[in-house]
């Protein structure tokens, strides 16, 4: 009981400290902006640990963070294998193929007005569907290996990317296009020098949606069949053994991979679209 009580005290202290920081004079500095969420996260972790220990919650319902951390550190080689299988092989290769395919089709759709009017409504419709349901079919077609996962990811990321890229390619004003014409630029010149660069914010918007979808697709597809490796396999197999600390470790890997990949995209976007108003320093 004392542990639970300590947890509540720590929660109150952390919150009070955060409140002081957030309403204090330095609230807008970078350090405070970073410190407040970190303190909040740490308080949650400490509370989780203390309450699980204090209430003696069984490990098959909720393991404490320390146990998860120990399992994570103790099984690094296994988790690394799962990471390469699911994220690098299944997720990222599918993401790359889907992105290239969407790019090519988007340029084609943009050039042919008939396709734009026909394919775009269908693409918008498809982007809202639970495409992940295609997973059992692809697993049946392409086998249990990473190829089927990559195929699911391609199907999932294609339409959201297509819709975003086509929207981006239309984001130039008549004045800008006229200027290109006065320079004597042809279609391809205008495409590469004007329209693709100005489509970049839209493209990155689509890529950011797609990278999360690609992890979801790669993991969920493994629930329908996989080799004895991969994050989705690890999660479903460990749930079956009630080894929840291992499940949480696999989720931790997925979460880390997701945030790192997203972070990489944000950095690349900052480098490439530094000219766009949304990237300017306030």
């Amino acid at each position, binding site marked *: 009981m004392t542990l639970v009580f300590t947890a509540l005290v720590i929660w109150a202290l952390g919150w009070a400290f955060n409140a002081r920081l957030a309403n204090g004079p330095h609230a807008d500095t970078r350090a405070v902006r970073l410190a407040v969420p970190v303190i*909040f996260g740490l308080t949650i972790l400490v509370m989780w640990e203390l309450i699980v220990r204090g209430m003696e919650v069984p490990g098959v319902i909720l393991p404490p963070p320390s146990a998860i951390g120990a399992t994570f550190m103790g099984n690094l080689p296994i988790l690394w294998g799962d990471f390469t299988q699911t994220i690098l092989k299944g997720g990222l290769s599918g993401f790359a193929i889907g992105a290239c395919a969407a790019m090519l089709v988007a340029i084609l759709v943009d050039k042919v007005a008939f396709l734009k009017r*026909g394919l775009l409504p269908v693409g918008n419709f498809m982007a809202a569907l*639970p495409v992940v349901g295609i997973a*059992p079919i692809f697993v049946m077609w392409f086998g249990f290996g990473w190829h089927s996962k990559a195929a699911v990811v391609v199907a999932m990321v294609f339409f959201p990317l297509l819709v975003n890229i086509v929207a981006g390619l239309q984001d130039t004003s008549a004045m800008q296009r006229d200027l290109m014409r006065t320079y004597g630029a042809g279609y391809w010149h205008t495409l590469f020098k004007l329209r693709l660069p100005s489509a970049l914010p839209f493209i990155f918007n689509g890529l950011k949606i797609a990278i*999360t979808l690609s992890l*979801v697709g790669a993991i969920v597809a493994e629930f329908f069949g996989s080799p004895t490796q991969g994050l989705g396999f690890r999660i479903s197999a460990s749930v079956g053994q009630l080894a929840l600390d291992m499940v949480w470790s696999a989720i931790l890997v997925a979460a880390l991979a997701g945030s790192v990949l997203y972070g990489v995209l944000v950095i690349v976007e900052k480098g490439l679209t530094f000219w766009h108003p949304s990237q300017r320093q306030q």
Partner: protein
Amino acid sequence: MMRNLVPVLTVIAAIFAIWYIACVPMNVREVLTQVEREGAVIVPPQAAERRDAGTWGLVFNNISHLGPSWSMERAKLPSPHQVATEIWDSTVTEEIYGRRGIMRSGTLSNRSLVYHGSVTLNATLLGFIIGTGAGILLAIGIVHSRTMDMSVMPWAIVSQTIPIIALAPMIIVVLYSIGLDRFLPEGLAGMIPKAVISAYLSFFPVLVGMVKGLRSPDAMQMDQMRTYNASKGAVLTKLRLPASVPYLFASLKVGIAASLVGAIVGELPVQRGGLGARMLAGTYYGQTAQIWAALIVAAALAAVLVFLVGRIERRTLRVMGVQT
């Protein structure tokens, strides 16, 4: 709208044409095995040779034997009309003529897609309502408390970049092992674990959209509320909430689709009905038409839900006098 009709129909027709054509190479091996058993002469006569032969070679060498490509039972790729038949059989026929259908027994048959679809739909809607409600409440808290904003908001944004759905099997199993059915009626106890995942997936889009929406009134409007000496509650109900409605609907459309995906994935670990359970059962028994039928019903369900939200959005915005 009418201008787009011809191109859209062309694209849809093209999709069906590709689907029908793809049935030939996808099913060619099974088709050839079957017609050989019926006595036809196939070009590489040995099954072992056929295993090593290329798909297209098999197709062109045996072009006269490919009739059953579109009517194979357990085809690798069932043809569109087979899927349509499967949907019809497992909805209308099953319910009206089936022994366990609603006409004979008074309850929905557990072999029909109407039943499985309704199981998924209930979990989706319950989860969507919980997730949306929680998202709106937390957004109101975040807009009013700077501490909450700075502590919670970065985590909400980070959590959108991680595949939350990975939690689904664990949430399901843990909630079942806690034993909800001891103190809840059975239908609800089976629904809650899936609804939790649905709620979780729709929660974050709504939260992020609502925070943006509640902050959308500009300084001039806020100042005007101050000149009226409006309380915080009045500012919330009279200015912030109405201003957030367009943002809310934009995230509701994302949220309802995410809820449906959550419910379907949530049905995978525990085989107690629902479209996800139906898909997994289809993979176990090689019933491809059944998988496709469940998939198409799920897609139709998503389309209807998103359409309904869009409809309510247009109505609401028109009543509120927002320019659309």
